[in-house]
């Protein structure tokens, strides 16, 4: 029977024995793909789910694709990675990360839907996967190299032509180790997609990333450090297989609808359109491009590239925060706008090549500056550092800081095991109270969308396992704040906007615009709890399992359409439409939300086994004890709110703090809605069995961590 949308096999890499084992994807079909598939595989193959350190050899890391990868589903080219991470506090939770580019697509052409990484290799290895042939290679000559060098050397070893114009290469003939010569392995013009670590991962730091191509990074979870602990330098995938699609005609038609109905016509575009899926390609960098000599660069299947490859030879494929992690200090020393751009893009390259997560810099650099200004950090200070702080802001300093953090040198020796952990080691707990160290949740830095204002972001993060980095509702802030800041037209008024969005919040909040009321009066309400539930479940399936891009989905509202309705949940080009066309399923949009709920509950079961309890679910003290008064970009933070008379307005939410007890009440409300024990936050048997997870309930029961059923 054809398994539409799937390669059909899952690859287990037993690093300890250097053995490859295949599992049928059909056994995991009910989990869809991506995160859901990864959580199910983690559940089955991680023998000790109580581990709280990603470096434990028992840890299992799963790299997973989606049935939509490489199929033309619009902007669904991502790849998900799950496992116990290395970058949260006080516990390294079972967590997730996400990466774009070509890897998710190429896994499938190589014959697999997911790769399960188990055990620990006795010495550094890299793994070559070609058309379901798996070879473990000694990585002695790759260990210590940066991420670009590692990838280019592997391409060379595999026999990939160096020049993009060279053309077809035969998987049987050109590699050092040929595939089965008796079987025609086919030809390809494509380069193997390689996921690798750099020094930051090899040294098992919390900032270790998985890097693919020039600028695709799975960063926040610290999986690079986990790979380093497993002596795994890289995985290379290439193949000539094809993915069967259930209804290619419907798929092509829906894709055309996205272009023709939901996207602004590129010949006469609306440059200021309010939409996620319907935008023209535009560089999403936080600094100006160094030149106009560049192309937009997109993940596979994307409708709108957001990165770039330049003529100048640096900054390739880097976007968003990575392009500006060093912006604040560099702005003080750059002598021209051009120099400022070059410092930042080269600093980005330094981090990408070292495989270092730059999210620490969102607020971490401010903290380090604070320590220097206080006379606590520097040569001969309480916190000794030989870094050239007098050159802070220069490219030289950035490169030295990246090196120190990646190689556990200087202050990197302490920060490598976690920034909040280092704060405790250095006796700086007070900084988490004052906000001088703005790491909001689970030891991770504030994202720029403060929980005191953008509540769905903060709640989602603290109720889960990490900074969510899910911009589903954040687009509201982006659109209206930009309109206020730059005097652009307010394309959709507050009342219409919340009405349109709530139409798509089925099933929990359908046509309930009050769930989008971010006012002080509503921020702890059952309404917002329903919004957060929807968000958790939507993202677990559509964004992290179907692997739609965070920047392009959901498309709630869209000014390219006559009625301002976006593609999300629509019957002509909604998320489920593409899923069904590829897989042959008959999912409704709400079925996808329900599948997300199942995945979310399995995740919570794993966290529970790791020791999660509601008493741990707390923001950093500064969120409660100080007011949000300094925005990342603007001195205001606009969100829809409902006045006392019921009128919807866009209102500035700066200046408020979170109330501890009211947040506790909110948690109770959320747990009750989720069917979790309100005392512990643990899943209950009824909830798990209702999701067809009886074995999960049994495991929690055996561990003495099954939630008590509600008496009501």
């Amino acid at each position, binding site marked *: 029977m054809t398994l539409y949308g799937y390669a059909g096999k899952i690859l287990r890499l037993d690093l300890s024995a250097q053995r490859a084992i295949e599992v049928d994807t059909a056994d995991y079909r009910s989990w869809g793909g991506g995160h859901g598939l990864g959580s199910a595989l983690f559940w089955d193959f991680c023998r000790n789910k109580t581990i709280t350190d990603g470096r434990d050899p028992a840890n299992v890391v799963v790299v997973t694709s989606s049935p939509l990868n*490489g*199929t*033309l589903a619009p902007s669904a080219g991502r790849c998900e990675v799950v496992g116990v991470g290395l970058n949260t506090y006080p516990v390294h939770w079972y967590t997730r990360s996400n990466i774009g580019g070509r890897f998710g*697509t190429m896994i499938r*052409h190589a014959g697999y839907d997911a790769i399960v990484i188990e055990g620990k290799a006795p010495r550094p290895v890299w793994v070559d996967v070609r058309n379901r042939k798996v070879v473990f290679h000694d990585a002695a000559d790759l260990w210590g190299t940066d991420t*670009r060098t590692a*990838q*280019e050397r592997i391409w060379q070893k595999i026999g990939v032509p160096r020049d*993009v*114009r060279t*053309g077809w290469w035969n998987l049987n003939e050109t590699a050092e180790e040929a595939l089965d010569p008796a079987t*025609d*392995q*086919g*030809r*390809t*013009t*494509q*380069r193997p997609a390689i996921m690798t670590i750099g020094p930051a991962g090899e040294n098992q730091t919390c900032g270790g990333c998985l890097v693919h*191509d*020039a*600028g695709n990074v799975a960063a926040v979870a610290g999986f690079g450090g986990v790979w380093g602990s497993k002596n795994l330098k890289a995985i290379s995938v290439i193949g*000539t297989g*094809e*993915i*069967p*699609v259930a209804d*290619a*005609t419907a*798929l*092509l*038609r829906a*894709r*055309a609808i996205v*272009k023709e109905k939901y996207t602004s016509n*590129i*010949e*006469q*575009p609306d*440059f200021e359109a309010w939409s996620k899926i319907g935008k*023209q*390609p*535009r560089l999403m960098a936080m600094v100006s*491009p160094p030149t*106009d*000599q560049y*192309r*937009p*660069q*997109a*993940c*596979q*299947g*994307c*409708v709108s*590239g957001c990165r*770039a*490859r330049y*003529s100048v030879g640096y900054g*390739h494929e880097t976007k968003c925060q990575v392009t500006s992690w060093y912006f604040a200090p560099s702005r003080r020393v750059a002598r021209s706008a051009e120099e400022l751009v070059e410092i930042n893009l080269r600093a980005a390259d330094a981090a990408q090549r070292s495989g270092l997560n730059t999210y620490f810099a969102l607020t971490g650099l401010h903290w380090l500056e604070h320590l220097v200004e206080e006379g606590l950090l520097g040569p001969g200070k309480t916190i000794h550092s030989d870094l050239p702080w007098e050159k802070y802001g220069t490219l030289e300093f950035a490169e030295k800081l990246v090196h120190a953090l990646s190689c556990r040198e200087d202050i990197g020796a302490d920060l490598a095991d976690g920034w909040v952990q280092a704060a405790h080691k250095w006796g700086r707990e007070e900084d988490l109270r004052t906000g001088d160290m703005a790491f909001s949740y689970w030891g991770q830095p504030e994202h720029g969308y403060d929980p005191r204002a953008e509540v769905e972001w903060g709640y989602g993060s603290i109720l889960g396992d990490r900074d969510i980095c899910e911009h589903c509702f954040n687009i509201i802030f982006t659109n209206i704040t930009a309109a206020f800041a730059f005097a652009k037209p307010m394309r959709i008024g507050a009342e219409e906007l919340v009405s349109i969005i709530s139409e798509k919040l089925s099933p929990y909040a359908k046509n309930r615009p009050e769930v989008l009321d971010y006012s002080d009066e509503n921020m702890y309400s059952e309404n917002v709890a329903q919004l957060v539930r929807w968000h958790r479940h939507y993202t677990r399936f559509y964004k992290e399992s179907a692997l739609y891009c965070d920047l392009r989905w959901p498309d709630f509202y869209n000014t390219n359409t006559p009625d301002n309705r976006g593609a999300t949940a629509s019957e002509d080009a909604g998320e489920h439409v593409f899923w069904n066309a590829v897989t042959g399923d008959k999912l409704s949009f709400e079925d996808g939300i329900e599948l997300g709920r199942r995945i979310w509950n399995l995740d919570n079961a794993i966290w529970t086994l790791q020791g999660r309890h509601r008493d741990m679910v707390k923001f950093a003290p500064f969120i409660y004890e100080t007011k949000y008064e300094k925005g990342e970009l603007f001195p205001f933070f606009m969100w829809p709110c409902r006045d006392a008379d019921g009128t919807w307005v866009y209102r500035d939410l700066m200046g408020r703090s979170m109330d501890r007890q009211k947040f506790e009440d909110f948690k109770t409300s959320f747990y009750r809605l989720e069917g979790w024990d309100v005392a512990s936050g643990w899943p209950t048997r009824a909830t798990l069995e209702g999701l067809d997870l009886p074995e999960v309930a049994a495991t929690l029961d055996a561990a003495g961590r099954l939630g008590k059923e509600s008496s009501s």
Partner: protein
Amino acid sequence: MAPRNTDDPNGISRRRFVASMAATGCVAAASSGVLLADGRFVIPNAEGFLVVDTKKCQGCGSCMMACSLAHSGSASYTESRIQIMQDSFGNWPDDLFIAQCRQCQNAPCVEVCPTGANHVDEANGNVRRVDPEMCIGCRMCIQACPFTPARLQWDKDRRKSQKCDLCVDTPFLDEKGGPDGIQACVRVCPVKAIAFTREMPSQTLTDAAYQVNLRDWVWKRLGMTAE
């Protein structure tokens, strides 16, 4: 109006040309074309061509996916009739290359085919196509293609050659394809980096004439060069 083979003697129509040559006994029929006494193989010009802007392409691969889906109903890079090759670390514009079939005027792939599988489809704008029923998998057409990479693909599972037919034979496309219809790659490209034209690009052994500038004021407004 489709361009005509300007190399034809006197610029006359193919019909008149073939008729006159046949009358003199100077030609031999071969695979939709005629073989002249001087050894030249002449076939009617295709009535449509794909041109691309390699400086504009965003490398999303959507054209490749759409091509294989429209033709075979499955997603495959290897079987896409248009190939996008990229080096993530390369510098613009040399970081990416697009290889599409040129629908050559002389079409060596048609000339060399021993069975006539690779032929000129006169019912569909003279598109050079491979009839999979007639293809014996000898791969001579792939070897005959003078361009790198070869613009024909090898289907390893069906053991046949294939090539771009401008979407004449696209059972999974719910619109008419071909020179008088749509082409899946053109239709899907988010940035309009692929275009269909009836004007035959200059026939040289480089791709220069098939690589055009499709960037305009919009592209410039988006921050990228239109030069």
